[in-house]
């Protein structure tokens, strides 16, 4: 078998040597200890003896050539050794862990024992080079805050268990931290549209079955209709809101005669652009003004942590009547949109809601809701808060009414409003103040434009 003789470190820590002359020829039979070559290094000129007995197969390099420590320079055919061991090479002490060494040699051909100074132990030496230091070379820093949401490990674990990507969940905790509640909510919303069976299969609190008068039930007198998915959701949401939030409602009438004039002036113009200008965009603007001035109306109560979570964004839900029941699509960042943009978006979402084309995503994340039952009829109402929001504004039908102005009775346009709010976090005085803000702005639309 072949034995590859690697050029050993003949001095203390040398790396290379120059072949002065070969002392054997290819084909020569040699004995262990016979000189093979004369080599000159920066420390010594010396003859290198053969580590094995056998026949010279290859001599690598000619006189004058440089050979590197660790490179094979003589190949010898030897007899009587098993082939597995034959791949071993000279230059490595047998006393040390062969396997480790071999692995290192495989990794990098140039690994050699250069010097093992240390009186105790063996320091592995190599002439391998590593790249120069990059000290002082700045690599462009990416914005590290962008990717990861803030969350406690418990919330992360919960998200993982429920199969929710926590980075898509909107956090309601301090600095937008994702709380356990947020994950729970995300999960619920996640289940609603996508998994039809989800709701049916969900374990529900055992409520009593309704027992009707007159037994046995007569099909003539009663009819049992299974609740639709959306109806069940509405029922749940309404109960949740009604039973957790102590509602209180403030009502008032607002003279919007000036606003009506203004609206009428532009309604026709905008119609040409296919934009339907209702009172609603103006009311949204006024509401946002109110929310900014009285931030508790744009908040949620975190009961568990006993904290009021104020939201610094304004997503206005628009309660919309559809064939399948009530839906509340959300206008995002309504504070940043113009009257015209709002008008467009309102007609867009209400149309799509009615046509059942609304995305689930568009029903999420509201911070305040407006319900316009007046478009159908009715004057005052007691709207139910869209939990976990803090308040909801109900709009009644705008009517012409006699009003007293400067001591004279005149006919004006009157908008009846009903504001329900979470009485745990909002006092009655604040409710009145909120309505006053709406009133001031809607009565004087000039102010509305000046202030928003």
């Amino acid at each position, binding site marked *: 078998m072949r034995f590859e003789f690697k050029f050993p470190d003949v001095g203390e*820590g040398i790396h290379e040597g120059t072949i002065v002359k070969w002392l054997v020829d290819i084909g020569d039979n040699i004995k262990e200890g016979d000189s093979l070559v004369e080599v000159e290094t920066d420390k010594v000129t010396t003859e290198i003896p053969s580590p094995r007995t056998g026949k010279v197969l290859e001599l690598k390099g000619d006189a004058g050539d440089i050979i590197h420590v660790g490179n094979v320079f003589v190949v010898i055919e030897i007899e009587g050794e098993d082939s597995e061991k034959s791949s071993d090479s000279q230059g490595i002490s047998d006393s*040390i*862990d062969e396997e*480790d060494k071999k692995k290192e040699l495989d990794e990098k051909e140039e690994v050699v024992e*250069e*010097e093992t*100074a*240390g*009186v*105790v*132990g*063996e*320091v*592995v*030496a*190599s*002439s*391998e*080079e*590593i*790249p*120069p*230091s990059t*000290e002082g070379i700045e*690599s462009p820093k990416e914005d*590290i*805050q962008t*990717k*990861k949401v*803030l*969350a*406690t*490990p418990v919330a*992360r674990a919960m998200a993982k268990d429920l199969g929710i990507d926590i980075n898509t969940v909107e956090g309601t905790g301090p600095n937008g*931290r994702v709380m356990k509640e947020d994950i729970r909510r995300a999960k619920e919303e996640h289940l609603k549209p996508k998994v039809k069976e989800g709701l049916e299969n969900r374990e529900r609190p055992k409520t009593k079955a309704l027992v009707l008068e007159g037994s046995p039930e007569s099909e003539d007198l009663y009819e049992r209709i299974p609740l639709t998915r959306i109806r069940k959701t509405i029922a749940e949401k309404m109960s949740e809101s009604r039973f957790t939030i102590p509602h209180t409602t403030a009502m008032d009438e607002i003279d919007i005669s000036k606003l009506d004039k203004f609206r009428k002036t532009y309604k026709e113009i905008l119609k040409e652009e296919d934009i339907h200008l209702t009172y609603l965009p103006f009311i949204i603007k006024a509401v946002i003004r109110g929310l900014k001035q009285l931030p508790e109306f744009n908040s949620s109560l975190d009961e568990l942590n006993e904290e009021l979570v104020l939201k610094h964004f304004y997503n206005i839900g628009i309660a919309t009547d559809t064939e399948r029941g009530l839906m509340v699509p959300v206008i995002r960042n309504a504070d940043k949109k113009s009257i015209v943009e709002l008008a467009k978006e309102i007609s867009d979402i209400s149309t799509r809601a009615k046509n059942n084309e609304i995305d689930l995503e568009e029903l999420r994340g509201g911070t305040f809701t407006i319900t316009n039952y007046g478009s159908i009829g009715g004057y005052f109402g007691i709207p139910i808060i869209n939990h976990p929001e803090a308040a909801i504004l109900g709009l009644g039908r705008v009517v012409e009414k006699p009003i007293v102005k400067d001591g004279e009775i005149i006919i004006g346009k009157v908008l009846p409003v009903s504001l329900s709010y979470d009485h745990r976090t909002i006092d009655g005085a604040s409710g009145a103040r909120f309505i006053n803000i709406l009133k001031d702005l809607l009565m004087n639309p000039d102010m509305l434009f000046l202030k928003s």
Partner: protein
Amino acid sequence: MTNKLNLIGAVNQALMNEMELDETVVVYGEDVGVEGGVFRATVDLQKKFGEKRAFDSPLAESAIVGSAIGMAINGLKPVVEMQFMGFSYPAFNQIISHVARMRNRSRGLYNLPMVIRAPYGGGIRALEHHSESTEAIYSQIPGLKVVIPSTPYDAKGLLIAAIRDPDPVLFLEPKRIYRAFRQDVPEEPYVLPIGKAKVLQEGEDVTIVAWGAMVRDTQKAIKMVESKGIKPELIDLRTIAPIDRETIIESVKKTGRLIVVHEAPKTLGVGAELMAIANEKAFLYLEAPPTRVTGFDTTFPLPKGEKHYIPSPERIAKTIEDVVRF
């Protein structure tokens, strides 16, 4: 001008540079003078600067460190060698009772600009007591700085910084990689900041902190997991005390995961401190438990067992995968 040096050569050159520039720098210890140190870190210093500034001392670690304290108070900058970290314990009293405290004890009157060098760590198939990694023990002592380089370039810059530092520095040299590789090193003196870690490789999936010889093994482990699409960020801690918290925190906030690799035993090691930092300062970003890959809570085995003790690239790679997939 640069030269290609291995780590021991870089240490030697740093000493050469500083002794040339500053005649108050003196170097001594066991076998340091004539022989140039058992690992040749101080070779040729005596030839060049004479017996007064580079000399052999009697075999007494406590007195080596104790006398260095007196020298530092009396206007010199001694750089003393503990032949092996495992032999530094006779000097432990001097180090923790005086070296670390003199400045505070004298309310800033006596500062000690001194360096204690020691080869540390295992992997050279040596006798007992020659493979210690007890950096954590020293790193808890207020008033001490503990520095560990992982490359020739860093070794030179950090050692020169240590010599110039007005405060005492324990400079631990990973002897396993004394001669394992070479690197371009400027011939002229330069300093690297003590107390500053270095991000060796940027990544987004997990932050790995290592130092000394474990940096190389960690780099090998990273190569293994990169093929599986994992992009780790590697930080060379470089200074163990005081720890560069900022770099660690910033990285963990980015990756959400932390692995500490060290050769020393697991329990109450430097890794525990790094995990505590992640916990205190990046809690809300964590996506997996901060984790350690370390030596065992055992005595460092004699040579036939040492390959089991030092975390192998494979062991590190396995942990990286586990943590990323947590």
